[in-house]
């Protein structure tokens, strides 16, 4: 699964995405070395979700290239085999645990479907693998056989993580995957993600607006503002010593002990443009 020669497992170059007149992503480039974790930091409208969707093929870039595990994925897949191969290269865990699982499928059935998609294994081998995966994400036997409606948000996210891991991806994109969880559950899932990384050597791309989570889970970070990269570097450096004014503002807005909110006393601060 991991690249042996140190070449980036994921690389984006000159990514651009337009939605009609709106340029959502402009000239974004980054690369992810094997076994490392990259954060894409931004607020709403920064283009971070669009980038995630382009990487997994849910959107097509207007221009630019995306390469995963050495294969180009800037254009739609040619064949079923191609499509499945891309699924084994990059997987994704979405933000909302309440809509990212089919409400009619148990955790076991969900994982089984993915296994059948990628491997021609007999039933007992699949069963064994399902048990391994549910164990890895911390679900017990009863929870694995339960429908999503009987599971809490944190448990559903574990199922979503197991489903993504069933494809044995090289890169796992976490699209605000812990944002909707309670603080105490978020900590459990963050620990879990670190454990999974240690055990499977998967590389993470973490899409998040939460700087503390970014600090905890990633090595490198790029900061997006209105579709462009305004800063990049090692996560610790970007957060401790931000150079770009937007990154500085972002950092200064995070509540912490002793923090007092300050309004930006700029002229015309109230003249915000209309939405859409």
């Amino acid at each position, binding site marked *: 699964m991991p690249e042996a020669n140190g070449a980036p497992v994921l690389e984006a170059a000159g990514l651009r995405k337009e939605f009609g007149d709106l340029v959502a992503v402009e000239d974004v480039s980054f690369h992810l070395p094997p076994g490392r974790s990259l954060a894409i930091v931004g607020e709403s409208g920064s283009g971070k979700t669009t980038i995630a969707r382009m990487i997994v093929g849910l959107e097509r870039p207007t221009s630019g290239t995306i390469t995963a595990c050495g294969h180009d994925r800037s254009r739609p897949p040619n064949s079923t085999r191609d499509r499945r191969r891309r699924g084994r290269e990059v997987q994704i865990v979405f933000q909302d645990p309440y809509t990212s699982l089919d409400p009619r499928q148990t955790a076991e059935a969900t994982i089984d479907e993915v296994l059948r998609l990628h491997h021609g294994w007999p039933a007992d081998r699949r069963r064994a693998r399902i048990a391994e995966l549910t164990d890895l994400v911390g679900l017990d036997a009863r929870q694995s056989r339960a429908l999503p409606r009987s599971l809490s948000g944190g448990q559903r996210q574990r199922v979503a993580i197991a489903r993504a891991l069933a494809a044995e991806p090289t890169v796992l994109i976490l699209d605000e995957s812990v944002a909707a969880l*309670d603080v*105490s559950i978020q900590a459990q899932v963050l620990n879990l993600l670190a454990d999974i990384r240690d055990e499977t050597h998967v590389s993470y791309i973490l899409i998040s607006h939460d700087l*503390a989570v970014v600090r905890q889970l990633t090595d490198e970070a790029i900061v997006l503002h209105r579709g462009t990269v305004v800063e990049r570097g090692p996560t610790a450096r970007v957060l401790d010593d931000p150079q770009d004014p937007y990154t500085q503002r972002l950092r200064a807005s995070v509540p912490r002990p002793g923090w007092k*909110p300050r309004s930006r006393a700029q002229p015309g*601060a109230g003249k915000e443009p209309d939405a859409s």
Partner: protein
Amino acid sequence: MNEPAAVGTLWSAGATSSAPLLEVDGLTVLLDVSGAKRAVLRDVSLTVSPGEAVGLVGESGSGKSMTARAIDRLLPRGAEVQGSILFDGGDVGALSGADLRRYRNQVAMIFQDPRAHTNPVRRIGDFMTEALCTNLGVPAAEARRRAVDMLTQVGIEDGARRLRQYPHQMSGGMLQRIMIAAALLTKPRLLLADEPTTALDVTTQAEVMAILDGLRRNFGLAMLFITHDLELAAAICDRTVVMYAGQIVEVRASALLHGDPLHPYTAALAAARPDIAQTADRLRAIPGRPLSAFEAPPAECAFATRCAHATDICRSAVPDLVDLDGGTSRCVRARELRGRLQEAPDA
């Protein structure tokens, strides 16, 4: 806008009195959940003094939103309420009709998702002036003038234009600022803010928090600020109340809460959060998951199953609130564990 131009009108007639503005005493709420009556709040008591900002912090099932709804008389049909809620000495539960509408002019509420609470087919101006015109009989032109004024206070300069717009033309942050402005138009004495910034970007959140803080001080407004974020509450609230499983587990001065908590849950919650300034080898996660009031075992401390400091005493009865060093804690071992909650837990 961040400095008060003038101190402004202090609305509360009794602003300088020390009698509490809001007094919740022994509030217990039971809801009908699939045919059975389940407790969502258990014996909640808190006070808010005029001009005071109190934070209410908790996770899912803690009952923090339910408390605010109970105070604003927004509980679902069929809810059974025990205990009392007194506003300015009067029983809130007994209000109805015109008295209830007057009460709602004095106690305003803002919610997490402004879009869910605005009618998309009505203009901002109509929505903002409705309460003034209908309930307080203010003439339309005067109401609009006040609305534009208030929009300036929340940092929206082109108020007249905004009044003619529809909600879908605004971003989330702007709409939330409009909601705050609308809530303040009736000159309330208490503001209930239910996670008003949770759905906003962090930079927008900082803006809105600054506005809220500034306005509150200008107008001498009391506030109950509900959030899941301990540090956010501490930023603008003098006192913080922590809730778990429908009960209050700690009340403490916000400045002291992080460094010197009195209840293991507060300490665990603060410790579970990743630190923006450093990477921990492993986060100190709390095992299990947050419980609702009706899921908590009836005769023991609700947090006992997840608590690193739990002993047999904790599992023998529901602990009472004890006063300790200016704060309150619902922990039987509070005095014993004093000053040791921040350390790694003992076996």
